[in-house]
């Protein structure tokens, strides 16, 4: 029996020849990740357990991004705790204000994660790195604590679901539309406990940023991980970033899949998830007139350069609709600098938008764009649960950067074609 990419990575890290779905394994980890919300809890557990050393100071990444630059005394206290822990244990990949970016944009950008890796992170969107052909999954703080000490974790090998992608995306249709379409198709628990594997010629037509966005949101269908094959675009992305050897895996012809779906990229339209679940998707003809108060363009899902570039191209030469606030958040310092140098920020500022330092901030209702009672927001983020970005009676519409930018100009949920 052949194996899937996910199974091959798991087998390699478990030190066995083969694994199959539902088997329990103990696997070595290449990176253990935490942020300013989950790391403090993990550090407490680490110390409570009596651990004195981390397994490898170069294989732990602590990224201060959720409430950073700190929004209040309590969050500053939490970051201080992580900062002191990092200093004490000489953690190589500790990223604070000035060096930090949103973790799931930053780690691939710096080449800290790579193809073939086995990665856990105390953040549910750790699955993002599947875009590079790595196994990456979100865990809680206790798992992070134990893995910081042992460098290992136990896993149940997930069943794999295959998505055969064919065709090519139309202009301004992006990975965000693809993953929202898929979540709408299978539901928020449609891939619960499973690996979502993306395959077929359609994969190769998509950019790395599209793939990061797709892998990022597989958790919104309940998946354990999302995974892409490695191709020339992956190798090109890793060139200059990853300085060590990496392993490429491909699924065998006779690998076993729990389910398969065929997705024609040519058929994908602008797709928006309406409140209050990511599966509640609608295409333009079903949108109706949704007037909006705020737009957020950014996050680990859509805060990369091409995301901001797409939004800027839609906004170029236009002003925000009366009464609409637009917050743009580049995911990393590198994205920030490129956007600044390329005139992308000028387009946003001239339109009436504001630019923030990298932060997860508003996506999780932390700060930097909290919604009031009854307000509606179009966001390029990943969750539209009740109260996610603020008041429990506020509404979030999840969309691509192009749709978010168009909506900011038109004043209601709109496609780029409606910007005149």
């Amino acid at each position: 029996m052949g194996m899937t990419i996910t199974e091959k990575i798991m087998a390699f890290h478990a030190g066995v020849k083969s694994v199959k779905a539902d088997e329990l394994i103990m696997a070595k980890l290449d990176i253990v990740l935490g942020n300013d919300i989950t790391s403090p809890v993990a550090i407490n557990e680490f110390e409570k357990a009596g651990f004195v050393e981390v397994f490898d100071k170069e294989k732990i990444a602590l990224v201060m991004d959720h409430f950073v630059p700190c929004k209040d005394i309590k969050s500053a206290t939490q970051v201080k705790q992580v900062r002191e822990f990092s200093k004490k244990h000489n953690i190589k990949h500790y990223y604070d204000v000035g060096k930090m970016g949103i973790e799931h944009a930053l780690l691939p950008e710096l080449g800290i994660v790579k193809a073939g890796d086995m990665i856990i992170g105390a953040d549910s969107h750790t699955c993002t790195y599947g875009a590079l052909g790595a196994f990456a999954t979100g865990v809680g703080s206790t798992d992070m604590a134990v893995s910081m000490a042992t460098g290992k974790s136990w896993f149940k090998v997930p069943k794999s679901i295959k998505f055969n992608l064919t065709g090519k995306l139309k202009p301004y249709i992006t990975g965000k539309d693809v993953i929202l379409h898929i979540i709408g198709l299978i539901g928020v628990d449609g891939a619960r406990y499973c690996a979502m594997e993306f395959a077929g010629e359609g994969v190769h037509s998509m950019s790395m940023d599209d793939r990061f966005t797709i892998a990022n949101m597989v958790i919104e269908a309940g998946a354990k991980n999302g995974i892409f094959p490695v191709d020339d675009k992956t190798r090109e992305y890793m060139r200059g970033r990853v300085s060590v050897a990496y392993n490429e895996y491909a699924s065998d012809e006779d690998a076993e899949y729990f389910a398969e779906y065929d997705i024609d990229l040519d058929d994908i339209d602008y797709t928006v998830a309406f409140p209050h679940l990511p599966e509640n998707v609608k295409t333009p003809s079903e949108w109706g007139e949704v007037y909006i108060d705020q737009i957020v363009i950014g996050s680990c899902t859509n805060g990369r350069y091409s995301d901001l570039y797409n939004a800027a191209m839609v906004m170029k030469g236009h002003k925000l609709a009366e009464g609409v606030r637009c917050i743009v958040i580049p995911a990393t310092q590198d994205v920030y600098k490129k956007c600044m140098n390329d005139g992308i920020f000028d387009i946003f500022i001239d339109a009436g938008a504001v630019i923030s330092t990298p932060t997860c901030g508003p996506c999780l209702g932390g700060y930097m764009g909290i919604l009031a009672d009854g307000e509606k927001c179009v966001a390029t983020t990943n969750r539209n649960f009740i109260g996610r970005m603020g008041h429990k009676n506020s509404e979030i519409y999840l969309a691509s950067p192009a749709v978010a930018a168009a909506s900011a100009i038109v004043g209601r949920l709109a496609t780029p074609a409606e910007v005149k």
Partner: protein
Amino acid sequence: MLKQGKVYKFGDNIDTDVIIPARYLNTQDEKELASYCMIDIDTAFAGNVREGDIIVAGSNFGCGSSREHAPISIKASGVSVIIAKSFARIFYRNAINIGLAIMESEEASKKIMEGDEINVDLTSGKIVNITRGEEYFAEPFPEFVQNIINCNGYINSIKKVKSWKK
């Protein structure tokens, strides 16, 4: 291990943002987290729930963020066990790791109603609905998982190990 309490019933896809909104994640204090538990979908829950009470919910309980603060806030509010049709995978693992008992039973999830008094045997998986005179069964956890829950969490269950570094 036996648990008994009054039921608080919730629906499908109860996500970690409603269990504990991120605006309260600037603390690790368990009692403080408990005081905000479920605040965005049931403002009365945190004030009414008593030690030993039981949550019964639908499918995909705990979906969304990996925040361990979610099961921590539920456990610190006094809830002794959560019974659901199914759990999201990160929440499932987090609940066990912090020593919060959970059980999957479609029948119990459907038939148990808000306010029922129920009795749960974690060892056998038997659930007795005292109010309705009904019984349901859930697959019990293997012994090592029951041991983690009995030890009040994964860390406590392995505490004697000082350093794993080779």
